Structures are given as C-alpha cells and as structure tokens.
C-alpha cells in the first residue's frame, strides 16, 4: 500500500461511479446521439476549461510554497474560530454512529471526487455549452478564492486543535486515505472548506440543470449534503469553515452564471 495504490483505488472507484451515473442519469440514447459533437463542444468551452486546468496546475505548484508564505504573512485564526463555535464539531461527532462515520469517510474521498467530475460529463453531453462553461468557471472561482484564503489565514481543523474531544475519525476509520488527502492539501488549509464550497456549487448547478437531468438533482443534493456533513463529523473542518464554504459556493455560482461571461456565441 502506498500513495500510488490508494490513488489508483480512488480512480477505479470513481470511474465505476461515473459509469453507473452516466448509465442511470444520462441514459444510453443521449450518449449515442451526443457523442459525435463532443470534440466541437470541448473546443467551444476551451477557454473556461483551460483556465480551470491552469488554476489546478498552479494550485499544485503553489501549495507547498503557499504554506510557507502563509506562515509568513497569514494570520493564525484557529483560536478565533474555536472561540466562535466551541465544541460544536465534537457534539456533532458524538451523535454520529460508527456505520455512518464509515459511510461519510468513503463519501469524503470517493463521493467528493465523483461529485466534482460528474457535472463536467453531464454538461459536456448538453447541446448548449453554456452549462459546461458555467461549471468550469464556478470551479475556478472556488479554487482561486480558496487558495487566496489559505494564504491569508492559517487555521488547523478540529482534530488538530482539540484532540481531547474531537477524534481524527477519517484517519482512524480509513487510515490509508490520509496518504491521499495529505497529497492534496496541507493541514493548515481548512478555512474555508473547499469540499463544502465545491459540493454546494455542484448542488446549485444541479438545480440549474434540473430540466435536462431531473434525476441528478436529488442525487447531487444528497451527496453534497453528505460531503458537507462529512467534513465536520470526520473532524477535518470547523462549522465556521463550512459556513464560509457554503457562501463561497453560492458566490461562485452567482458569478459564473452572470450573462456578461456568456455574451458571445450563446444561443440561449
């Protein structure tokens, strides 16, 4: 077991979920009819997609460097957050039964990865590329603002601050996931919760897509809700991070759906 094998495990599970999702939510007829147009659409939505790619690439480069910078210029707000909400996360944790925690552990890694990738597939299969562009743009806004906050604020999550009351449940239940999460983010980057903001983004976009994909809305909402809950129950995020995550998610959708960003070649 090493980082690569855990990453492969995640990739396999998410691919399976995507296959099931496409079959159940999109349906075979639509795939067949839309397949020839994919290349054109990717070209049409190239700008927001490339922008997202660039931000993700920058994210991975800046991450190590950003943590150091953050200690230099950022303010350590862990104790402020704790002063605001106290032992909320600990109480929430004590309510969750073991099976639910295990479920949330898998949702936190598999479910979240699926939740992020699937909307790109869904919107790619729509004739109107506007939704694809919106989704990519909304993700970009999340990452840019999130990264900025991570540099400006140093904050440790509940499991790191209050080991006396909050259990590091993700790593206690499924220790191998720590290999993946530590590759993806530093433990000082908890404010705001990007898991939350991106899940909220996906849920809000699912609402916009409800006419096209009526089955996606309930699935996305349930998954997003589970991810949001998991961040707290697993002891990773504070409720404060989650609140700001929800706000960030809503803001990103608001910005990404403004007509001014879709003025050119749109048909609707």
């Amino acid at each position, binding site marked *: *077991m090493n980082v690569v094998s855990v990453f492969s495990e995640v990739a396999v599970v998410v691919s399976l979920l995507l296959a099931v999702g496409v079959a159940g939510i999109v349906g075979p007829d639509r795939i067949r009819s839309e397949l020839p147009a994919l290349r054109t659409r990717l070209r049409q939505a190239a700008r927001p997609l490339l922008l997202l790619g660039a931000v993700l690439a920058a994210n991975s480069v800046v991450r190590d460097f950003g943590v150091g910078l953050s200690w230099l210029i950022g303010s*350590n707000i862990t104790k402020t957050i704790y002063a605001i909400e106290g032992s909320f996360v600990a109480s929430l944790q004590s309510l969750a039964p073991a099976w639910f925690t295990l479920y949330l552990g898998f949702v936190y890694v598999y479910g979240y990865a699926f939740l992020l990738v699937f909307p790109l597939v869904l919107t790619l299969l729509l004739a109107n590329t506007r939704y694809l562009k919106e989704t990519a743009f909304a993700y970009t806004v999340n990452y840019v603002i999130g990264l900025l906050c991570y540099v400006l604020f140093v904050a440790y999550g509940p499991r790191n*601050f209050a080991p006396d009351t909050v259990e590091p449940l993700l790593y206690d239940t499924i220790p191998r996931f720590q290999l993946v999460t530590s590759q993806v983010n530093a433990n000082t980057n908890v404010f705001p919760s990007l898991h939350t903001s991106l899940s909220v983004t996906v849920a809000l976009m699912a609402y916009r897509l409800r006419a096209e994909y009526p089955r996606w809305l309930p699935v996305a909402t349930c998954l997003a809700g589970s991810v949001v809950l998991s961040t707290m129950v697993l002891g990773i995020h504070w409720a404060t991070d989650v609140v700001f995550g929800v706000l960030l998610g809503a803001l990103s959708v608001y910005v990404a759906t403004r007509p001014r960003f879709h003025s050119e070649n749109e048909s609707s």
Partner: protein
Amino acid sequence: MCGASRLSRTTSRRAVLGSAAAGLAATSGCMQRLRTLAGNKESPAVSLSIKTRPADEDPGAMHIARQLETWFDTAGVDTTVQPVTATELYRQTLLNHEFDAFVARYPYRQITADSLYSLVHSSFAAERGWQNPFGFADLEVDELLTAQRRQSDDRRAETLASLQKQLANACPFLVIGTPDSIRAANTTRFSGWTGAFGKSPLRLLTLDRADPEATTLRLVTTDSRVTRNLNPLMAPFRRRGRITSLVYDSLARQYQGGLIPWAGVDWEWDTSRPDGPVLRVTLRDDLQWHDGEALTAADVAFTYRMVADTSLGTFEQAVPPTRYRGRATVVTAATAIDERTVELTCTDCSRAVAERALTAPLLAEHVWRERASEADIGGVGIGAATTEALVTDAIPPVGSGPLQFDTASDRESLRLTLFEDHFRTTIDPADSVAASALDPPFDAVEVGFVGSDSTAVELVESGDADATAVGVGSDLVRTIGRADDLTLLLDQGDSFYFLGFNVRSAPLSNSRFRNLLSHLVDRQYLVDTVFDGYATPAVSPLAGTGQVPETLQWGPGGTVTPFLGSDGELDTEQVRSAFREAGYRYDTGTLLQS
C-alpha cells in the same frame, strides 16, 4: 510641546483648537491631575496564550495544552491555545521569543545535571535557541549552576538538590512528565527490535535480518523536518537528533548512562595547566568524512570553535548555534596538537562535566568554514545578524557517522546508506552494541513521511514500512497489539514534556504567578487522560537521572507544588484565595493584574 511651530497649512482648524486647549489645560496645572489619574487605570485582565504543535504532529502536546487551558481558565486566567507547526513554533519561541508559554519536549535524548546550565543560566537569556529560551535570570540559580560544574559527589548532590528546588519554585518552565515512546515494528523483515529506539541511536544498527532479501530498513515518520534539513546546529528543525547523530559522529557517545569512546579513542584529563583543565583527546587513525576527505585533529578543533561561535570571531558579536550550547561553553579553547591529537581547554569544571563536551557533533572544516559568513538570500546579503551555518539546510550533509546521505525529497522521504569507510574497530568486544554496530543488517535506511500516526502504523502493519521512526499516540497501543506481525515497542521515555514560560514580560515575569500556575496542574491526571498511563509524572527536569532529592520526587499530593484540587478538578475557592493572597484581584471570575 504646543506644536505651533509644526503647524502646516494642511492642519485642520479643529486640530489647532484642540491642541491649543490641551496646551491650556497643561499650563493651568491639570497635567498633575491627569498624570495621577493615568496611573490609576482599571487593572487589565490576566491573559495567556499557549503555543504548541497541532495534534497531527504531536497529539500529546496539544492535549496537554488544552487541559492546561481548562485549568488556567478555571483560575480566571484568560487562556487560549494556538497550534503552530514545529519549525514555525520553534522559530517564534526559541529564536524570536514571541510567546507567552509553549508546550514542548526537552530536545535531547538524555538529560544530565549539567544540561540545566544552558537551559536556565542567565548568561544565555538574550541568546537565540534552546539555551534559556525562557529569559530566566536568577542570581541564586546562576551560582548553583556554576558551583555544580566544579563539585563532585555529596557536595554536588546538595547543590543539585537546592537547584532543583529553586527551579520548581521559581518555575521558568513547568515539568509535566515523561511519556513512554510507543512504536510499531514489523517482524517479517527485521527482528531484534526491543530497545532499537532506546536512548542510544546506535541500537538501531544492531537489528537482525529476518528476511534475507531485506536490504533497506524502511522507517516511517510523522515529522517531515528530517526530509528537508539535516543541520545539527539548527534547533527549529531538530527533534531529538536521533537521525542526525547517526550521520554526524562525535568524539564520544552517550551509552547506558556513561560515555563510550567513538571517534576519539582515548582522552586524558590534565588539571595541571594554568589556563584551566585540559581534555587531551586522541583520535582514531582511520577517520574519514563522507566525501572522502580525512578527518583530522584540525577538524575537531574547528568544530569546538564553530559551536562556540558560528561566525568564528568574524562578527562583532558571537553567533552561537541554537543547540549544543551547554556543551560548547565547557570548552574555552581547542587546539590541534598534531594530526591525531587535540587539546580542549575547559572552564573550571569537573571531569564528568567536561566530558559531556565530547558528544558534540563533529563538523568538517572544509565544509563549514565558508558557512561562518553572513547569511544571505540567493547570494544577496541582507545585513542578517546570523551566519550561513544557522540557516543552511546542510543537504547533502557531510558527516563522519555510520550512515551517509543518499537522497532527500522535501516532505516525502530521506534515504541514508551505510558509510562503508566508517571505522571498523571493536571498541569493546564484550559490548554487544559496539561490536554489532559495525555490521548493520541493511545497506540503507529510508525514512518516509506520512501525515498522521495512525497511517504510519497502518503502513507498518501492511508491510510497507518496517517500523515507525517516532513515537505514536497511546490510542494506537491496542491496534499495534492486535496485529499479528507487529511488535509493540515500549521504551521508557527519553525526554519530558514541559510548559515553558516567557519570563521577559508580564504576567509571567512574576515568579509568584508562575509558581501559582504550577499549583493548577494535576500531573497524574494528565498522565492518565492524555497518555492513558503511558507516561511518568515528574516535577524535576532531572527525573530519571537518580539525582532528584526526595522532596522533588513525584508522589501524589506530596510535591513542593501540590495541585489545588483533586482528580483533575480544581477547588475554585482555594485557587482564588491563593491568587488573592499573591495580590491579584477577581472581577466576576476574571483574574485581574494587581
């Protein structure tokens, strides 16, 4: 002071009127009243911030800090806990002295009585590093510290008893207890783990090979610092120096409470010299640095000049390293007599104290000499008051120890290989360690980093690593015990947890206040709740050395600073009256400065 001459056209009319009015008030005798009243402000509330490492890095420290917060809050002291990552924590506390209090562990594997010298002697109060980070200054303590260096036997024991008592009362730092080191080891590839992580790092080289195919010892750590810095002189990056001490040899090594000859094959103690006693050390004749250069007496003499002042006298003020300061101050001059002989002139001290200097890491002159210059950034001088020696990551390190550097990847891994040209003399055939240290059952040691101790244990269990390089939380004892291939390694603790105070500013500058805080700490309760019993409470920093007087031995309720309550619960009335007696006041539960 009316400021009329400074009036500019931009000054508003209101400001002019205001300053005129203030001027009038002052001249009409109001100033006297104003000044009297200014001295009578409402007393500020007493607050305290405790910095420590987050739970991922050190579950014990964070848990202790949080419990202290609860107790101090109960006493009315407005306390907050601030999690800070290791390198940053030690930069803020040891180097910049920006802290009220911090929870940490004693930074060496073994403490000796003379270790207290650098820890609390006032001459180090302004220095940066592990030397007196508290800023403590107490004439009586200074005298005792100096006296014990000269004394021996009963007289020294008496001095040390007074010293420990004085420290427990004045409390520059509050000793909490020594945790047992809990590690997991996998027995499929290597065996003989018992004691492998004991007090001497050499023991790691005495494992047995269980699987003939195994050539690399794979360790896993939750502390990434060793993957990006191997400079033995830099306090913020060192834990207790186990790995670096295998890379950097010393003249002698501490082993089972005594010293064994190492790079120095023999030494004499000459007290007949006019400048002070001299340690005349003879080196082995087959010593080499990892880069192939010969290790000579000149290197050794250079080492002791470097650990005294990393600028080698080129700066106006000496720039001492942030570690090994106590050992360094024993040696006042170091001279190479010939290729294999070096003379260390010591301060007025006993042989036992002087010999401790022999455990400082040896530094190669051809590598470190240029590091005596001013530190710069990318070749640009920034007028830093520090030397390159205290800034460099020293990667690749050039030492002379049994392990040499191979590769390192920041926050991922460190790989060391056996140094084939390490000396191959049997020091004492009867001594199993010294003999088998020459033939370790592996060619390389890899230290991989993971973010949490439970993941580290899982990697050892799955066979992806052979052992955890650092201790893990006591909550993992059962996990380790249940797994088939895992051995639970329990080593008696090698360094104590303490709460260190910054006595440079209020309210912690008041020794009575610090003393009162020490009455708010129930050590037994911490041992039971934080460490599940896998720790030993301690009052004196010398606990475990056999040099603790009876009055300072840990015993429930029987210490010099008994807990003001029972079973972890403070008796609020008792606490408040104790603080009131010390001149503090309470305002609805909040402690106010007197």
